């Protein structure tokens, strides 16, 4: 039987894995938060279970995401995931972005084919997989970006 001290340490480490420093940092200091003046496409995503809301604006130029912004409200996981996503795809080619969306959502589904290390900072979100109800929070912005891309000529 584990002592209660060990037990508390274990809970704390599971929570540490969910709320990694980089996630808290993005939540408290969001990147690319706001809206674009002339977006190529804009899409709103809702997670009715939690009430998370994320709107993603993208501006495409020469097959690249020239600019991106998001706004919304929700839990730390949904909002920091949106912030990290904007940083990860800013300036990327549309096909690279599609691939990243695919890899990120595959990682969140627990796919063995994705090495989280290859996703850079986004690897921090892997801890969310231990908390299945929160996976939807983490992928909300990514699905929303995917929908936004589908609305554009270059992305569709």
């Amino acid at each position, binding site marked *: 039987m584990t002592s209660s001290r060990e*037990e508390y340490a274990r809970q704390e480490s*599971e929570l*540490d894995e969910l709320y990694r420093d980089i996630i808290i940092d993005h*939540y408290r200091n969001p990147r690319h938060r706001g809206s674009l003046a002339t977006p190529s496409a804009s899409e709103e995503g809702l997670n009715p279970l*939690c009430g998370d809301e994320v709107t993603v604006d993208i501006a495409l130029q020469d097959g690249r995401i020239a600019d991106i912004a998001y706004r919304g409200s*929700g*839990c*730390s*996981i949904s909002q920091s995931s949106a912030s990290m996503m904007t940083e990860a795809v800013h300036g990327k080619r549309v096909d690279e972005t599609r691939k990243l969306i695919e890899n990120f959502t595959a990682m969140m589904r627990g796919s063995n084919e994705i090495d989280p290390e290859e996703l850079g900072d986004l690897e921090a979100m892997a801890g969310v997989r231990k908390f299945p109800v929160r996976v939807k929070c983490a992928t909300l912005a990514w699905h929303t970006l995917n929908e936004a891309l589908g609305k554009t000529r270059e992305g569709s």
Partner: protein
Amino acid sequence: MTLDVARIRKDFPILERKVHGKPLVYLDSANTSQKPRQVIEALVRYYEHYNANIHRAVHQLGEEATNAYEEAREKVARFINAPSPECIVFTRNTTEAINLVAYTWGRANIREGDEILLTEMEHHSDLIPWQRLAAEKGATIRYIGLTEDQRLALDGLENLFEANTKMVAMPHVSNSLGTINPVEKIAREAQQRGVMFLVDGAQGAPHMPVDVQAIGADFYAFSSHKMLGPTGVGVLYGRRELLEEMDPFLGGGEMIRKVTFEGATWNDLPWKFEAGTQNIGDVIAFGAAVDYLSDLGMENVRAHEIEITTYALDRLRQLNDVTLYGPPDPNDRGGVVSFNLGEIHPHDVGQVLDQYGVAIRAGHHCTQPLMRSLGVPGTARASFYVYNTQEEVDMMIEALKAARDIFKLPEHSAP
């Protein structure tokens, strides 16, 4: 001590379990309550000893089941001091009870241009049925607003109703705020003006003495599962004359007197509203829950909840960065404490607490319009019942401190 909580806790097998290696601290009874052994055993006894359909079997088991089912109705009638068991209709839950009224009384009586009066603290279950009815009939809905400490803004009660107000509905106790509404006063006013009055008692009947005759409302709806009973059973109390003139809600077996190929006539109250085979086992077990609460005494249940709510409010106020919702005086509220911790989203608060074995509710609590008018995405909500202790409140507070550390809230509020 108003209740012998240590003894009560022994009746609830689930309170022995651990969650994430920690003792379960269950602070989500406003969502659904836990069940005592007496209720679980009543359910098992029914299925093991006298499972049969009611009102139609000529055999011994059928008679025993019918008696137990109707006895549960009598217990419920006594519990809320209804004038007779015929005024008690069993439904699936509070939501179905309210829909029953909207679809039968509402459809027959609400006309174009009529007004339905609700409140800004309405639960979706007492909101959507009326919105649908209003849309169908071309009626309007007005919402009674809230004061700064989230009571109903009822200044000038005599001006509450317009000439076209046909009905008013509101929660006895707000599930999101804890506010106890002055339903007796509303009922007096409504009666004088000939306005129909429905009380959503989902958070009332489980937590305080309720006397439907003293309140004077036309309808009072509540659920078994929030008062130690099983899920799947709701209650609609209605004034007898009203229930008698109302059309049936669902058609089928049991609710009829005589059926021909051309048509049918309806059964007596309350069976007119209980179509098809009912949730017999759960109704009988609900009767055991009512016995359990009656034995404790609802005055004692209420006193215990005031005590623990007072303690929880005090402890939460000592934490920095806590925003509390609802009236500040525990005597004005039920055993529900809604709060936010700094800027931390309620789901994150709930997640951290869960890891410490503390179960609360986080989110909009089925009151989305209310959350919007409070300007928050949701709240964290701790709710108490007969088995909760002050030590459990302490454990919640410790877990909240952990949440504050994780989200790096400052130790002291800014000056």
